């Protein structure tokens, strides 16, 4: 069973439907017992880093989530959920992340060509930076759907794919049992579905 952590951010309808489509048994939950009994955990998220970080800490689930992540259970952060895996985020001030991965989250605006539009929104190609079990069913150069204005940096030890937006933007990360996608696999057609499928087979 996959536990999708419910801490009051964003719409989880599409994510639930896409997991259902690949035959995964998924539950949106904040119940500690269900989270403990899950085989895999997905941390979703949309909105601003500070607001989401606060909601996550206020939910009282951080200790449990950390313990679960340390237990070796496959763990996937999506979009803002991926950004929260890092040590800190700089979206309207400095905020604390979960610190599962080394790195921080900064505005794209500070690094990209100023003529480019923000958010980085639309379909962009994945540029693999290493091998990952998450990519079992997809290919280097496959397109995925992004919507974000901030990105993870100083995360060389976990980045597994980038996408070109005048700079290489961190697109996916993976280290041990911890994974993250900046893009939305649940909105990335067959490619996204195949990433979720690979994640749901981890640890089998």
């Amino acid at each position, binding site marked *: 069973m996959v536990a999708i952590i419910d801490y009051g951010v964003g*719409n989880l309808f*599409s994510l639930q*439907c896409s997991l259902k489509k690949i035959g995964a048994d998924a539950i949106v939950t904040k119940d500690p017992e269900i989270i403990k009994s899950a085989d895999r955990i997905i941390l979703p998220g949309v909105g601003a880093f500070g607001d989401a970080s606060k909601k996550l800490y206020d939910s009282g689930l951080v200790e449990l989530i950390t313990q679960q992540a340390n237990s070796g259970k496959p763990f996937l952060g999506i979009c803002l959920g991926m950004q929260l895996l890092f040590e800190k985020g700089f979206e309207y001030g400095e905020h604390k992340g979960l610190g599962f991965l080394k790195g921080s989250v900064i505005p794209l605006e500070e690094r990209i060509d100023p003529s480019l*539009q923000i958010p980085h*929104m*639309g*379909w962009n190609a994945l540029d693999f930076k290493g091998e990952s079990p998450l990519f079992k069913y997809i290919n280097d150069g496959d397109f995925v*759907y992004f919507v974000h204005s901030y990105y993870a940096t100083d995360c060389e030890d976990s980045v597994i794919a980038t996408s070109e937006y005048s700079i290489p933007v961190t697109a996916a990360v993976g280290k041990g049992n911890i994974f993250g996608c900046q893009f939305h696999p649940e909105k990335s*057609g067959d490619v996204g579905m195949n990433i979720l499928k690979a994640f749901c087979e981890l640890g089998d």
Partner: protein
Amino acid sequence: MITKRIIPCLDVRNGTVVKGTNFKDLNEISSPVELAEYYSSHGADELVFYDITASSDGRKLFTDILTETASKVFIPLTVGGGINTLDDFDRVLKCGADKVSVNSGAIRNPSLIKQAAQKYGDQCVVLSVDIKRVDGQFRVFAKGGREDTGLDALQWIKQGVENGAGEIVVNSIDTDGVKQGFDIEMLKAVCEIVNVPVIASGGAGCKEDFVDLFNEVPEITAGLAASIFHYGEVTIDDLKKTLTENNITVRV
């Protein structure tokens, strides 16, 4: 780099997809759910659903169809039509929409854009504008293109972006349904004043019209069309092949 997007638009009335010429003489053509699934598996980068129903029964039917589509189609979904309040945003987002397009509702209540952008984020708010030339000016039309609001379209769009619209759909009434190509002049004028994605709508008649669009207005991020796709005059796979041959980057 971000690819140019090809977006089929589905006008939905009483549970079926319709498309008319110059917004009149609507012909009913197909089931929205089936059509959405077809497009999604044949290269569409995004789908737009416009609810053109007036009755509350029709609205219920629309949200049911939207929910069914969103549970089967895993590409971004934009929904417009009848969006007048934050509750309307909430209603369609809960059915699985990713972005919400406002048009007449924002004309009646200009603070709607700001409120929605603050609540759901700029990326969620699409400002759709129906524009027609009147006395040498680009004029905003309301109520599905039937009513001249007197508003200057460029001013209106600029204000919309300042208020938080994350994307603009420019629908030229002058070229809509005529199939003689997109309204390049109008689109250039809009791209000059904003730095958010602009989607071109109205006028696509053949593949070459999309090539001309992206070549002549490089800032345009997406082309939207309905009838040429619905009637199978142009397939999206074929269109993308032509765009690739013309060095325009698309998702294949």
